[in-house]
């Protein structure tokens, strides 16, 4: 180390000692700086477009997928449990709106602070109450699905979760033949439960179907809260326990980490995020249709998490935004009109799945570690040492043991 560098280091250390440190719960440097800017940008964004803009519509859906991806990131990224049946929690969330926010159960007459007229048939709970129900129901479902996987390892977990996802999808499709008594059925199958209650907040009024802005702000608020929770959980005792289990189960257990409880918490929390997003998507689409709950949905959310960078919160956010923009805006609204713009009579709609798949391949080949890899993984992959831990630098090639 040259004299100049030593001098610089001394000055820097002196400066750091004098300036009060930001509280740890605000996250790292980038989170402290980037998050408020990003939120400010997202708040201003809808006012740059008309209230019917397809771009804002796509952004609203994308933000719902951000919440989904963050949930799956807890299970796959933090805890390292490959879950291929995440669609189950989307289904549970969406059915919570269908069951508790429409006239579907026609024998019941329940109305708690909802936008429905009083005395309307069905169960009508306020949107926030539906969210609470969804969190409870999906957490329980997450634990029940997680239980049989506890003895399994690696990709066997993937196939069991996949199996549960498919079973739940199939129950949703056939639910119109499952009778609950009194002519009520479990689901409406492929016909779908429609005419869902629009979100209503006392003092703010009821959401409309035409303007997308209220929906946008609702999901933005949910997404910001979920990002905050995800960051805080990652840095908590529980988050460290997940990472320890992911990296070496035997070592983690022998250090006293309760295996069953820690894994089940990952399933429950991941599922709850999926349920919240499912409630929003169900209500935003204004239909809960069994055809939506396909295996490809799980794959799609998993792709977001991996493309973003497994285990990284900002990665999951960016991966979700990237893939859902690709799917809901770039391909339908931009790419498909491109040939006409150049005066070509050629339809790209037929190629949209292929283009989506091709872009996924390209992104992964160019950045196998994902767009914004978690720092720990970056270190593992590149043998690169984080600047705040120079003592970990090893002269030998290869990864650094953490």
């Amino acid at each position, binding site marked *: 180390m040259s004299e100049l560098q030593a001098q610089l280091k001394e000055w820097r250390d002196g400066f750091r000692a004098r300036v009060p440190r930001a509280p740890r719960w605000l996250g790292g440097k980038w989170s402290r700086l980037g998050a408020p800017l990003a939120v400010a940008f997202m708040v201003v964004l809808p006012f740059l477009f008309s209230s019917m803009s397809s771009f804002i519509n796509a952004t609203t859906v994308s933000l719902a997928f951000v919440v989904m991806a963050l949930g799956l990131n807890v299970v796959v990224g933090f805890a390292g449990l490959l879950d291929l049946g995440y669609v189950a929690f989307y289904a549970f969330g969406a059915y919570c709106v269908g069951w508790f926010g429409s006239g579907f159960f026609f024998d019941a007459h329940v109305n708690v602070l909802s936008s429905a007229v009083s005395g309307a048939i069905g169960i009508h709970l306020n949107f926030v109450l539906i969210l609470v129900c969804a969190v409870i129901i999906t957490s329980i479902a997450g634990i029940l699905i997680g239980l049989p996987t506890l003895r*399994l390892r690696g990709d066997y977990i993937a196939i069991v979760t996949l199996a549960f996802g498919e079973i739940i999808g199939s129950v949703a499709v056939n639910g119109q033949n499952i009778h609950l008594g009194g002519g009520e059925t479990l689901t409406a199958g492929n016909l779908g439960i429609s005419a869902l209650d629009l979100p209503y907040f006392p003092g703010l009024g009821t959401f409309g179907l035409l303007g997308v802005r209220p929906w946008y702000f609702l999901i933005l608020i949910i997404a910001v809260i979920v990002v905050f929770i995800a960051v805080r959980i990652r840095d908590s005792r529980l988050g460290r326990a997940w990472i320890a289990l992911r990296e070496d189960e035997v070592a983690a257990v022998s250090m006293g980490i309760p295996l069953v409880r820690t894994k089940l918490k990952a399933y429950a929390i991941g599922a709850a995020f999926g349920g919240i997003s499912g409630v929003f998507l169900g209500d935003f689409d204004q239909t809960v249709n069994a055809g939506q709950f396909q295996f490809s949905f799980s794959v799609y959310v998993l792709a977001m998490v991996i493309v973003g960078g497994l285990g990284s919160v900002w990665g999951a956010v960016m991966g979700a935004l990237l893939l859902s923009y690709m799917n809901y805006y770039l391909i339908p609204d931009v790419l498909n009109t491109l040939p006409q713009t150049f005066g070509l009579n050629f339809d790209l709609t037929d190629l949209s799945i292929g283009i989506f798949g091709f872009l996924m391949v390209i992104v992964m080949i160019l950045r196998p570690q994902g767009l914004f890899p978690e720092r720990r993984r970056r270190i593992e992959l590149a043998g690169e040492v984080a600047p705040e831990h120079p003592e970990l630098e090893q002269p030998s090639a290869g990864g650094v043991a953490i």
Partner: protein
Amino acid sequence: MRAHIGVWGLIAALAALPIYYGISDLTSGYTSFVNGHEVVHHDLSLLGFNLLEGLSNGAIWALIAIGYTLVYGIIELINFAHGDVFTMGSFTSVSLWGAFGLTVSTGPLGLVLGLALTLVISMAVCGTLNVLIERVAYRPLRGAPKLAPLITAIGFSFVLQNVGLLWHGGEATGVSDLIHEGSKVFNISGVTVHRADVLAIGVMVPLVIGLSWFVNRTAAGRAMRATAQDPEAARLMGINVDHTISLAFMLGGMLAGAAGLVYALYETNIWYFQGFQAGLIAFTAAVMGGIGNIRGAVLGGLLIGCVQQLSDFRIGPEWTEAVVFGYLILVMILRPRGLLGEETREAG
């Protein structure tokens, strides 16, 4: 103790459906129509028919499942594009027999020769396709995080589905019933064996025997097993690991191509999305049998075929998927590494 419960529980779980329906057929009987009259039978021939159909259907799943198992055994990747390679096998076969001029009225000799040639070309095409996919999408990601190739696999699955969509459109297309799949070949104590059953099992058995011979008896097969056990050590012993991996993809693709032809003849329709469902079932079969194990994949495929048929006939086709996956979960709970599985590298 726990292991004993596991094994017996597993056998009980696997045999539960057929035994239940066998007893119910024998005691309360089942009805069928003979010359327009409703007749109640008290025998096992309906169960036998279900199981036969299950085995022949399962033979197709077994061929696809081997592809999953070979690839997983060597590079621990769930090759999501494999189901779509199988679709390409069906599409190529249908186009080929069109090009050869095979029709419903082609004579037996021409049919056998034409289909044999179709089988060979379809296997070659799918094998090559699988090797190319490996070269483009998985090889650059050796040493990358474990889940990265999973995403390129899904990406390629989408690309191949799009190719299928452009090739034959979005709807299932009927293809000519070249072998008259429904005609009777012979009868075993009341169970009619159709041509389709003979075809499926007749293609699957020699291919599986050939593959086992290749993997167990040849030098290349030994290299494959060595690479599956420990790629690093295999490399040190002078095995070209990249070639060996390509070989595994080649073999898997070839079997998928064969399955594609059999499927087209068996179901007499093709669909760009057929491979998705088939891939899911075959992957389930591979896991149920113990992933990485060829015999396990065959066993899993045949089992799932039987469970599907029983469920289709007795419970209702809309529940089949749930029943199959329910079976899978039971097997996984009772025997976490699959029926014939050994400890994998990751688990060991």
